């Protein structure tokens, strides 16, 4: 058996607050193989983002274990790329300096040309010395993508990175990110509210229950032998069936979502 890229074993997370305990995850099992693209969907506030934070090693589970490339998360050597809903570009830095931030923090010198080349690939060559406020939402998210690609992480965590974009831009960026990740054979975990997006982009969709989140359904998505990419996938004949199937799983939560998506950041 090949080494797993990510493994969550019996993971339970409980947030402690002065008012009481908030159970976020309950006995989650998750295995992601290298190069796999997995989407997590579930009712809002169910703790999807908590799973990403665990993989990133930002905190430890209350019970259970998280392994990244066979090592305990938080102590792992491999690089993790994290894209958030907001791009969090630093407004006082130029596009180029923002894209260099990751390399700068990992003390990885001498890759400046790589960053410039990547920015050129995404049509940003004219804006290298502009500031983020001068860019549209889609261009900003592209800069964030380059910032993450530049450090060449083994694992990509995408936390609704497309949800703040308008429909047209979202579709384009989804395609670009997917191509970038698949061509580099990156392991990816995508958290999203958008069932269509999950089906179109991933090899596997995991449906979570409402809080405390448990794995409700683990669904392999197949569009022929090779995944054709999100754009083509949307036009494939199985697409609508997959979306319906997942919607059926989620339906019961639609009317009784938790008031606010607390604990989801």
């Amino acid at each position: 058996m090949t080494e797993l890229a990510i493994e969550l074993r019996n993971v339970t997370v409980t947030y402690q607050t002065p008012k009481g305990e908030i159970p976020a995850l309950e006995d989650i099992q998750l295995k992601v193989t290298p190069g796999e693209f997995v989407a997590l969907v579930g009712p809002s506030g169910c703790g999807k983002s908590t799973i990403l934070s665990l993989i990133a090693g930002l905190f430890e589970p209350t019970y259970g274990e998280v392994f990244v490339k066979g090592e305990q998360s938080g102590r792992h050597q491999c690089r993790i790329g994290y894209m958030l809903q907001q791009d969090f570009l630093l407004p006082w830095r130029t596009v180029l300096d923002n894209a260099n931030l990751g390399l700068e923090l990992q003390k990885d010198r001498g890759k400046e040309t790589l960053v410039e080349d990547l920015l050129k690939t995404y049509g940003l060559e004219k804006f290298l010395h502009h500031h983020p406020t001068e860019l549209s939402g889609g261009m900003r998210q592209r800069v964030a993508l380059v910032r993450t690609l530049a450090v060449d992480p083994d694992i990509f965590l995408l936390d609704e990175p497309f949800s703040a974009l308008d429909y047209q831009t979202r579709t384009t960026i989804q395609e670009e990110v997917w191509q970038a990740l698949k061509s580099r054979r990156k392991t990816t975990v995508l958290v999203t509210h958008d069932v269509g997006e999950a089906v179109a982009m991933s090899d596997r969709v995991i449906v979570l229950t409402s809080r405390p989140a448990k794995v409700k359904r683990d669904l392999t998505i197949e569009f022929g032998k090779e995944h054709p990419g999100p754009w083509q996938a949307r036009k494939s004949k199985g697409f609508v069936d997959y979306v319906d199937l997942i919607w059926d799983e989620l339906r019961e939560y639609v009317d009784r979502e938790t008031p606010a998506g607390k604990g989801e950041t």
Partner: protein
Amino acid sequence: MSTIPRQQYLQKMRKEKWLIILTQAFILAAFIVAWEVMASARIIDPFLFSRPSQIIELLLKLAREGELFHHVAVTVGETLAGFFLGTFLGLLTAILLWWYPSLARLMDPFLVVLNSTPKIALGPIFIVWMGNGYGAILTMALTISVITTITVIYSGFTEVPEGYVKLIRVFGGNRWEILRKVILPASVPTIIAALKVNIGLTLVGVIVGEFLVSKSGLGYLIIYGGQVFQLTLVIASIVILAVVAAILYQFVAWFERRWISNPSSGSARVRVGSGG
């Protein structure tokens, strides 16, 4: 090439700007003339209210004797020393509070009380402790400015969006890098706002200190003039003080313009690209 409507617009703007400046100058001149006229007509008592001509005469005399520059230099020197020291200590303390959140929680009630206590009340204690000299004045100025600096800058630090901090952590950055690459640069506008408040507060502290110590400086001139019933000296010193305060404020404003080379004001510019 500017269009005709553009030229008309610019012309209108220039005209309005000059109109405002002229009106302001007129108000000031009218005030001075009215003061002078009322004093010579004995509508107001020149012994109590002095008069502009006497003030100018006194200022020229003091300037000739070199006395004026000495007192101005003392006040400005103390203010700048207090300002830089206060800013430095305030920024340093704010960083410490950010670095150790438990320290911030611990200090919170003390800072609140200190912040709302009129620090001027501590003046006599400082004189006893520090002696009747610059030490007491500087301590007075520092006490007044530093607490405000700490609270303003620290609250600026805590308002930096959590996402930026998360971003640095995800890339493997440590706490020092979070401070250097996110917290400090994001707080530049807050720090500048603190500097602007700080320069004024330091001047208040210095003048109060000079009132109490009464050796030299504009504060000393004011208190001395009051004691010997020489209101001309009091008002002349206040005029100079106002000029000094304005220049010091401009110094901070100049610093602000140099420091912020305006990246974030880019929103005024047009957004480019559709992103699609």
